[in-house]
């Protein structure tokens, strides 16, 4: 008995100590961090803040008390949106398209405007998918931090486009093969499923149809990628691949979502989604049909995503897995609603974030050269309501091609979104432009031309004095048979405006580019030159990143630009 009396307090004390030693869950808040004060991204990176979304004017982040203290200490302007942040999938970014939208959202759950055109919505009463109005697109916060991909923007003014003046006859032939009849037939077939709402069996059947169509084209591989979405539903992305002859591991993606939606009363049985997004899916399949017969330097994946309307589930699943696997995705062309024209001639809107601007520039040039179509670029990281956005979250370059921004299609998310409302002249031009861009980037292999160089690497060497620094790039690549020399090209903007550095072809497989600015990125490509003077396609890009070595605000770079031009 005495022993028991002694044992009890000792046992309780041990229990108390054990309980105290357990890691306590810290209260986490959802915060909005303003971008307006200098390089906020660098402070967030230093403090390792859990940033889950980049928008045009702010970041959305999860922060515990320590993070909030650190933000205050570093004078970062922020405001708390929700003091008791739950699971990430509870928060949806939604657009504020009409004056009363925020009030409507607040009546259905909790909502806060984070930008004039953007709100965050969350609710504990039911599935957000069911609670949110059907006409509103939505995107959940990223399931992992986007912080590693927030790089300092480098402000480079683009010179007159060089590449736009060059029309590639092979790409022209490919673009011309996009068939209006083919697009029409594909849209009709997809519409005929009545609904492609992601949780329905008809959507599953539409996936089968896309799989079978891809399979009939003679591509290298076709497969389903299943995923679970919104608390237990299942759906599948449909993926087809044309493997690159030269760079099998470097991938270009053209994609569109094949699921559809209409108001909640009808969506289970009728959601034809001809424009949204049978049009994008048809353009992806048509691109696969045209390119299937051509050998390409780079691998191309044709992807039909599912559950986009539920919150980009298919593309989030795919992009997350791609990043985890360390996949090299050069660029993503996302086609979502590319067939409705409220007036002709209709422009194609191209939405990108700052790091993907080159893709938009290339699409604008391709649309003009190969499709007689005007495309317009909008840099807007807040436009996150389609399948390009999860790729942004994972640090990949991606664009959205869409008919209007803001949308003008009156049948958007309605049962009246049918094939008879589409403008096939505009639709065909949009499909040709996107195919042309894809073909330009994937580079058709040409018979009789030298093979595309491989193995290009760029090693930076930085030299510095007390107040200045210069950089050299040491390039090397593998020798290619049938090549008598090489040309080396450089640019400050990825995939744009390459300038040749050598006067005569370089006969060795190394090249040093001296006297480079330390604060700018440099991108290099190499071509092989044959004995007859024919030049190969570009190699894959090798990058020299900007350095943060020189933090001075007073460094004077004297006549540096003149020096570069003189070279």
């Amino acid at each position: 008995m005495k022993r028991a009396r002694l044992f009890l307090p000792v046992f309780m004390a041990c229990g108390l100590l054990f309980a105290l030693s357990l890691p306590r869950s810290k209260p986490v808040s959802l915060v909005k961090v303003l971008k307006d004060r200098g390089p906020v991204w660098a402070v967030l990176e230093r403090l390792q803040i859990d940033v889950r979304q980049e928008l045009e004017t702010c970041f959305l982040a999860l922060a515990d008390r320590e993070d909030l203290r650190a933000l205050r200490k570093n004078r970062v302007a922020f405001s708390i949106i929700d003091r008791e942040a739950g699971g990430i999938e509870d928060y949806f970014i939604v657009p504020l398209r009409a004056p009363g939208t925020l009030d409507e959202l607040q009546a259905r759950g909790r909502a806060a405007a984070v930008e004039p055109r953007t709100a965050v919505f969350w609710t504990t009463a039911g599935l957000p998918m069911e609670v949110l109005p059907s006409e509103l697109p939505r995107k959940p916060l990223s399931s992992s931090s986007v912080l590693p991909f927030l790089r300092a923007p480098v402000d480079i003014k683009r010179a007159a486009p060089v590449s736009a003046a060059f029309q590639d006859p092979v790409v022209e032939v490919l673009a011309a093969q996009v068939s209006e009849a083919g697009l029409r037939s594909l849209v009709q077939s997809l519409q005929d499923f009545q609904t492609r709402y992601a949780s329905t069996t008809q959507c599953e059947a539409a996936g089968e149809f896309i799989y079978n169509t891809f399979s009939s084209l003679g591509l290298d591989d076709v497969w389903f990628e299943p995923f679970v979405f919104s608390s237990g539903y299942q759906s599948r992305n449909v993926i087809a691949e044309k493997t690159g002859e030269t760079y099998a591991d470097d991938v270009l993606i053209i994609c569109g979502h094949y699921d559809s939606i209409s108001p909640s009363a009808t969506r289970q049985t009728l959601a034809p989604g001809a424009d949204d997004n049978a049009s994008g899916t048809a353009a992806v399949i048509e691109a696969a049909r045209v390119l299937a017969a051509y050998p390409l330097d780079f691998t191309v994946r044709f992807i039909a995503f599912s559950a986009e309307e539920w919150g980009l589930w298919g593309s989030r699943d795919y992009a997350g897995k791609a990043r985890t696997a360390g996949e090299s995705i050069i660029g993503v062309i996302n086609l979502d609603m590319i067939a409705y024209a409220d007036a002709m001639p209709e422009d194609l809107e191209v939405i990108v974030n700052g790091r993907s601007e080159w893709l938009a520039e290339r699409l604008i040039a391709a649309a003009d050269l190969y499709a007689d179509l005007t495309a317009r670029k909008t840099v807007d990281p807040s436009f996150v309501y389609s399948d390009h956005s999860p790729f942004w979250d994972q640090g990949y370059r991606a664009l959205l091609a869409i008919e209007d921004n803001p949308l003008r299609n009156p049948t958007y998310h309605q049962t009246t979104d049918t094939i008879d409302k589409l403008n096939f002249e505009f639709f065909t031009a949009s499909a040709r432009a996107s195919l042309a861009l894809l073909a330009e980037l994937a580079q058709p292999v040409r018979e009789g031309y030298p093979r595309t160089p491989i193995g290009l690497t760029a090693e930076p060497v930085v030299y510095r004095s007390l107040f200045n620094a210069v950089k050299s790039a040491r390039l090397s690549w593998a020798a290619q048979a049938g090549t008598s020399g090489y040309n080396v090209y450089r640019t400050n903007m990825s995939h744009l405006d390459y300038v040749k550095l050598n006067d005569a072809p370089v006969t060795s497989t190394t090249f040093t580019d001296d006297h480079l600015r330390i604060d700018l990125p440099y991108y290099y490509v190499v071509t092989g030159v044959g004995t007859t003077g024919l030049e190969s396609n570009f190699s894959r890009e090798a990058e020299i990143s900007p350095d943060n070595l020189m933090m001075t605000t007073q460094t004077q770079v004297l006549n540096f630009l003149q020096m570069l031009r003189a070279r």
Partner: protein
Amino acid sequence: MKARGLLGLVLVLGLAASARAQGLSLSLSAGVFAAGQETYREIYGPGLPVALEGWLNFRGAFGLSAGVTWLRDDGSAVAVSGGGEQYPLRFERLTFPLTIFFAPRLKGLVLRLGAGLAFHSYREKWQTVDLGFEGTCLGPRVCAAVEVPIAGRLSLFGSLVYESIPTGVEYTRGERINLGGLQALGGVAFRVR
């Protein structure tokens, strides 16, 4: 403009002080400069400064000195990551010090211990690339100088000067460039009155 203003101030102070001065000597010296910051030493190594200074002794043991020091250093850019290229550099600094000193009476030699401010104008130039940087700044200094008479008005002169030359320019994040250090000079001094 700053340099001219400071020179004017030095001149006015010098004239005013010399009116009350008990003695004046001029020193011409050269020596070696060892920078305090490793970054500077790595690029330029030790420097060879030349200095001309006037030393005014007031009544009592205090005095004022002013002058000019010129330093030129050649070096080469440091390769941060690999690299075997040579980028020759030239660094030049012109310093105008103004020092108040204490000179205790000692037999057979003149010892001066002083502290003051100096105005620095500096320039770094890449010799083979069109890159350069110019700047000016003010910085504190302390010095000890000694004169040992050898013949008539002529003395052997030696000094030890420590200067801080904060440029305010960041070299890397958190590390600001300070061009200061220790300089040891030797030469001759001439007693004017």
